[in-house]
Each structure stands twice: as C-alpha cells, then as structure tokens.
C-alpha cells in the first residue's frame, strides 16, 4: 500500500464525488459512505492512489460516490479485477466494496481465492442479508426458512457465516462492524487499512426496503447491550448493560460460551492459529443473539503482491542491456542457424 504522504490535508469532503447519491432514503449504505469518506483522510494517501472496485448491487454503487479512482464492475468479479490491479500496482491502496450476494453468492470463488492468496485488498462486505438491487430475493446470508419473492415457502438452505467462511479460506484479517456505529466502523477500517494483505470486513447494513431491521437486536438501544459484544484487543470479552456477561472458554471445549459473570476470555486477534477466531465467529449465527463485532483475526503472512513483486525484482536484476537487447537475446536463445 502506498506510503502516507505527510503534508496531505484532506477532509471528508475531498472524498465526495460529484455524483448524486441514489440509494433509498434511510438505507444503511449512506452511513457507511459517510464513515468511509470521513475515514479516508486518515489514510494519508493521496486520492489518486486510492481505488475502489465493486461488483453489482446497491452497495456496489459505492465507487461512484468516492472522489478517488473507481470501477463499478460486474456481479461478483470485483475481487478478481482488484487482484489484477493490486498485483500489478503495489503502489495503490485498493478497496473492494461488495454485497452479500455479490461476494458470497456469485462471487464466492473469487473471494475465497483472494483471501487464500492474501492479496493486499481491503474488502468491505455490506451484508444486508438480502438482494437489494434485484428487489428482495434471499441471499446466502439470509436465515434458513426466509420468505422472500423467490422463496415464498421459505428458503431451504442454511446461510454462510461470512467470517467462518473467510477463516476457512485462510484469511489473515477478519472483522465485523455495523453501518450505524460510525466510530466502530472507522476503527475497523483503520485496522484493516493498517493490515498488510487481505482484510475482510463484514459490515451489517440495514436495507430498509427489503429487509428492514434485520440487525435491530444489536442496534436498538434497548436490546443492543445484551447482544452486542465489542471485541477489544487485549481486553476481556465482556458485555451487557453492566458488563455482566462474559464470553468464556469452558475447559475442554473448542467453542465459546456466554455466561453471567465468570472469567472472561482476553481477546487476542493476533494468535496465529485461526481456531480461536473461528470459535469466535461461531458465537453468532443468523440469530444475532451474541454477536461480536471488532477485529477477530489479524495476523501476518506474506502477501501475494509482495511475493510476485519480489520475483519480478529478482528476475529483473538478472536482465542486462536495454529492453530491445534483452528481447533480441530472448529470441536468439534457441538453436539458431544463419543463412547468408
């Protein structure tokens, strides 16, 4: 990722493009956009070195609203396109914006491969648990039995847990946040931006038209404290209005449990073994009953981009002469013969 330029003095406004924002009034995407625009100046990267690439979906309109470089590509393919860009342009800060359908349905393969490769991409998945743009079909994160236009008798397939999937795909950075919590959202963006390699960020996003209040339990002031778990590096994992609930690791168990009181586990996103983050990811499913947000996993592994770059640099060091001379040399490497 491009190194910060110290004298830059950008503000959120600098990241607003001249395009009229066209989501439904009340859509959670607005809050995310504002949070991202607000966070961008912190990056300390000139606008021209930032690229947003998206697929198709309501969320994927995002790049049009950012005054950076941007591509609104095709459904599901943003991670693949961004991989080509990032691998060939390590000087850029490349962000992928995608939806639950875009990333996990049609784009599932590119997503898991980008994570496995640890391409230096910041992937923001706007999870509204529904297809917004196509007007309300269920998505791979919709709860089992969900009744939608395409499933009037209820959907027949269990959802993915996006974080478990990412961890199963060897992701090095995995986090979750919420559209409406700007401060938290920005803190997660900060951690993602600081991470070298793929950063996978699930953002719970309200689609007030087709799946309103899907995340109300963890947003509404009256219930949120009892269901939302804020992960803080090095801190015990506690929640509840009075901090009365603890996430504990029962002896002999592989998973986690929530209980009143007791010794809360100390959160450490940097442990190498993904089994911990995986266990954390299982704390919540479609029911949201005990939903951690924050950075689940944050470890280092060589990035695809940097290995490829190193190979290029090493190989280039071998080349001698002008490019044309090198080319002549290459053409002549085989057995040749000369006719006079």
């Amino acid at each position, binding site marked *: 990722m491009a190194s910060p330029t110290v004298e830059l003095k950008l503000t959120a406004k600098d990241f607003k*493009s001249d*395009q009229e924002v066209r989501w439904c009034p009340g859509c959670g995407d607005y809050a995310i956009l504002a949070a991202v625009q607000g966070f961008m100046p912190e990056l300390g990267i*000139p*606008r*021209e*070195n*930032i*690229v947003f*690439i998206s697929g*198709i979906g309501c969320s994927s309109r995002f*790049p*049009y609203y*950012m*005054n*950076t*470089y*941007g*591509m*609104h*590509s*095709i459904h599901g*393919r943003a991670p*693949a*396109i*961004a*991989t*080509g*860009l990032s*691998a*060939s*342009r390590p*000087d*850029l800060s490349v962000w992928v914006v995608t939806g639950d359908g875009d990333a996990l349905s049609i784009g599932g*393969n*590119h997503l898991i*491969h980008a994570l496995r490769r640890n391409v230096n991409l910041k992937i923001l998945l706007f999870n509204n648990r529904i297809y917004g743009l196509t007007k309300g079909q269920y998505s791979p994160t919709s709860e089992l039995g969900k009744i939608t236009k395409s499933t009037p008798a209820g959907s027949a397939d269990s959802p993915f847990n996006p974080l478990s999937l990412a961890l199963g795909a060897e992701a090095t950075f995995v986090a979750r946040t919420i559209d409406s919590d700007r401060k938290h959202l920005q803190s997660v963006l900060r951690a993602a931006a600081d991470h070298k390699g793929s950063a996978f960020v699930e953002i719970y996003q309200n689609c007030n038209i087709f799946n309103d209040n899907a995340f109300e339990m963890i947003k509404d002031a009256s219930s949120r404290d009892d269901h939302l778990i804020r992960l803080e590096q090095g801190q015990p994992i506690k929640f509840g209005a009075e901090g009365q609930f603890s996430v504990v690791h029962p002896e002999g168990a592989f998973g986690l449990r929530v209980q009143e009181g007791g010794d809360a586990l100390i959160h450490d996103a940097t442990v190498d073994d993904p089994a911990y983050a995986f266990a954390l990811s299982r704390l919540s499913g479609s029911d949201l009953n005990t939903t951690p947000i924050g950075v689940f996993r944050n470890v280092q592994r060589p990035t695809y981009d940097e290995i*490829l770059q190193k*190979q*290029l640099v*090493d*190989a*280039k060091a*071998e*080349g001698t002469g002008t*490019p*044309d*001379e*090198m*080319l*002549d040399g*290459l*053409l*002549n490497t*085989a*057995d*040749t*013969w*000369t*006719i*006079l």
Partner: protein
Amino acid sequence: MSAGAKRVEQLDRVVIRFAGDSGDGMQLTGDRLTSESAQLGNDISTLPNFPAEIRAPAGTLPGVSSFQVHFADYDILTPGDAPNVLVAMNPAALKANISDLPQGADIILNTDEFTKRNLGKVGYAANPLDDGSLDAYAVHPVALTSMTVGALDGLGVSKKDAERAKNMFALGLLSWMYSRPFESTLRFLERKFAKRPDLVAANKAAFQAGWNFGETTEDFSVRYEVKPAKMRPGTYRNVTGNQALALGLVAASVRSKLPLFLGAYPITPASDILHELSKHKRFGITTMQAEDEIAAVGAALGAAYGGALGVTTTSGPGVALKGETISLAIALELPLVIVDVQRAGPSTGMPTKTEQADLNMALYGRHGEAPLAVIAPKSPSDCFHAAIEAARIALTYRTPVILLSDNYVANGSEPWLLPEAGELPDLSVEYARTPNGEDGRFLPYLRDPKTMARPWAIPGTPGLEHRIGGLEKADKTGDISYDPANHEFMVRTRAARIEGIEVPDVEVDDPDENARVLVLGWGSTYGPIGAACRALRQRGLPIAQAHLRHLSPLPANLGEVLQAYEKVVIPEMNLGQLAHVIRAKYLVDAVPFNQISGLPFTAATLESMLEDVVKNG
C-alpha cells in the same frame, strides 16, 4: 562416423513421421531431426500429434504419440500430407498411422515390440510383418530395442535406461539415411543429461549405433540428400506457434514499454503460453494462474485498468466463460488481448485436436452489441507478429482484441527468420496526464478524433480521479446514463470505433493474374491452401489466394477483391463461419468448403476440391 559408400540420391523433400508410445520420446526425436534439418538449411514444417489427454496404458492405440517433420530444398507450407517414412516403435504406432501412408512408403519397425501380446493389445490377429498386409510398402524390420541394449553393453547403464535410448538409435538411423548433420544433437544430449554423464554416453552411443547400422546393413541400400533451401538471409530458429505467440507478447511489452500482465487458467492447448511467459519475469512480466477463466480475464482487465498490457490466454471453453467480462472490457474501453487457441468442440470436445470453430463466438459471443477486434495468425512463426498486431490494436484503440490461434499452428513448428527487436513496431502509448475538459474537468469518454480511443487515465495520476463501470455511460463524461439518445449514440459509436480500426488491405496472390476463382481463408489454413494453390498452378490451373489476418474489422478492400472473381471458395475447419460473414456482408455467393475432423486440411484435399471448382466452376 564416416559418410559411407552407399548410393546417394537427391530428393527435394521428405516427410518423416516418428510414432510410438507416449513414453518412447517421439516428440523429442522429431524435434532433433527437425533441428538437424534446420542446421542443414532445409525449409521445415512440423506437426506433433499428442495422444488424448490422459496417458493411456503402454502399447494401446490411445497411447500413441507421433511427430511429423517435413523438410525440403524449397520453401514449404505444411508438415506434409503423407509421410514418406514411418518409424513405428510398436504395433500400436503402426496401426494408428498406416492409413496415412502412400504406397511404397518406407516403414521402419521395431520388431522387438511385435510380440503376440502387443499385437493382441491393438487387435492384430496376425503379425503384419508376416501376413503380407504390408506388401505395398518398403518395410524395414529392425530390432531397435535389443540392438540399442546391445550397443550400450558395458556402458554401465541400467537395462531400463538402455532401452529408453532406442529413440536415439532410431534418430541415428534416420540421420544417416537423410545425411543430416548430427553435431547439434550430440551437443543437445550433453546439455539435456548434464547431470547424468552415463546417460550422455549411452544416448550418444545409441545414436551412433543407429547411424552405423544404416551404414552397414544391406537393408538400407540408398542414402538420400535434401539440399538446403533458398531462404532469405538472416538468422533462423525453429519455433512453435505457442512459443512464437508468447514471444510476440514479450515483444509487445518491450515495444510498448508497458509491463505485461497475464491472467490465465491452464487449458489445453493454450497452457504452454502461460508456461513460456512465466519464464520471462525479467522483462517485468507478471503471470498469474488464476482460480478460473473468469478471474483470469478479470485480473488481466484490472491490470489493464492500472496501465499494464493485460492479456489472457485460453481455449474455447475458457472464452465461453470470459464473455461477460469481455463485455465489461468493451464497455470500459480498455485495452485487452484475449488469446483463444482453438481446439475441437463443442463442450470439452477433443482437446488435443484442431478446429477453427470459435470464430462465431469471437465475433458474436457476448450479450448486447459488443463489438471487438479479431485477428488470426496464419502459421507458427506468424503467431509472433499476430500477437504484436493484437497488442497494437488493443493499445491504440483501447479495445479488447481476440487472437484466434488454433492447435495446428500452436503446436506445429517452422523456421522463423528472427526479427531485430529494434525494427519491430513501436507500440508506445501515452497515458492521460492532465484534464481534458473545460474548467479542469476530466472527461474519461472524450475521444481521440482519429482513433476514437478514450484517454487511458490510470490510477495514480493526480487530478484525473474518475469512475467507470459496466452501466451505460454518458458520452464524454462517462457518468451513468439511461438516456435513450445517448445509448443509441454510444452503441453506434462502439461499433464505429471497431469498424474504424485501420487494418492493412488484404493481398491477393494471383501470380498470372488470370484466375477466375479466388480461394479465401483465414488463420491456420494458410499453409494447406497455399500448397494446394501452388500445386494447381504448377499444373497450369490458375487460382487466386487471399488470406485474412483481420476478421474484425475486415480489410477495407475485401469487397472489391471478392467482386473481382467469378467464384469465391472459403475452406474452413468449421461449418462455414467465415463464409457466413462474407455472404452477409458482401452478398457474394461464397462457397464454403468445410472439414471438421479435428485434423488440418491436407494440401491434397484442397487441391482436388479447388481443381474441381476451377475446372467446373
């Protein structure tokens, strides 16, 4: 090795086919004979024939691998229709190839393998060596394996290694028969087995034994010579189409001063381009083996967006998958080279066989009006130039270009007069650097008046931040637009900008300018069509030949060319795809002549078809 005292006859050309089991090293043997012939200065053309994709059990028909080399003292266009000599390492090789041989052809058989068991494996009831079924040929039974093992006695190699060297015995024999210079082969063996001196010695000894066997045995009474061909002066190498194509892409990168980014997913017969390019990172080339074809073209497009020469290489099934992303590239108006090394379809079809049946898909295989440029190489070495031309069009006009190679040119080889890098076209391009609109605005879809290309403003350029995408774009600004008139304008503009690409006129080869029939081809049929035309003309039958490199847009003079002939015939390895285009566009009653067997046309097939047309109209 001495030249010996046998009778020497002059030939102007010879076609030799080596055939054996996948493990018998036939490709290598053929390669060596090709190389020796190249050293001698013959013109050459080769055709490998790999077994279907999985290694079949030894000695079975599906396991047969062969390599045909044609060398001559004049310039030739094809690897030859029918072998003058077949080297058959086992009964399967004989059975699989016998039907291609003309009467009187030489057959050299490895008798050691003509056991009852092996004969049974391929359904020979009787031994063809004994039952008279080969009477029409000049059969030379040679105990290749045991003589090789015998010759290596005392060299301390294992029996298995000794047996393996039998292909060098065969090569030695053939090299003797056709008076080939063998120094390069000996050097090659030293290089190849550098880490195993025992094998160097063994293989050299086997080669020598084969040579000596030719010299000594009564069975081979005549030795042949094929004089060097008159070829344009210069330095040559032998090259396959896939190699040449990869090198052409390297050259395009060098000559455009752009880093090359290849996104590819392995697929027969295109994988070798990926393999070749992966070796040349020192040119700043990045190769990515993507998770699938869609990711491959997506990554190449992403790299192109970032300013690279984006390339993706595949075969038909891969192009079918890439269609949606290519359509995006068309909407984005970014340069992109898509290489399709065609193989026999539909579906998985026959992956190791050739065909030209992806032309329709290249031209029309996307939703909406999604025009792009299409070009095709005509021979193995031409793949080099075609790749450069594809890059030129992509970069100059900011468009995806489909390069339609096929298995025949991709794996065939021929001598290639090496170009000088400095004399290759200059492909340098300018990225946009400054705003092009009023009040400092950047208009990503404001076009160059000549090329109609939009500016290539790559991320990292201050002041040109902009957004593009697959939704319809307003003229100039590139903003999303649903305006009907704008869409109509943009659709017609995209079509016009492809139609407006400047491509060279098609040339007509009609030496006596008296032909009434024109044969029009494209891509890899150039060799056989050319050979057939020559043969006809030698027999006093006039015929004109035109060959298309550019399929979209078509050369500006094509209509005129077609009108000038009474009859137009279009041979293709498909069911008439180019013919369809020509008929629609020029309303010319072009006659398709189609072969779709997975094999290239033979010159003979075309000659007799064309003779009929020339004579009977």
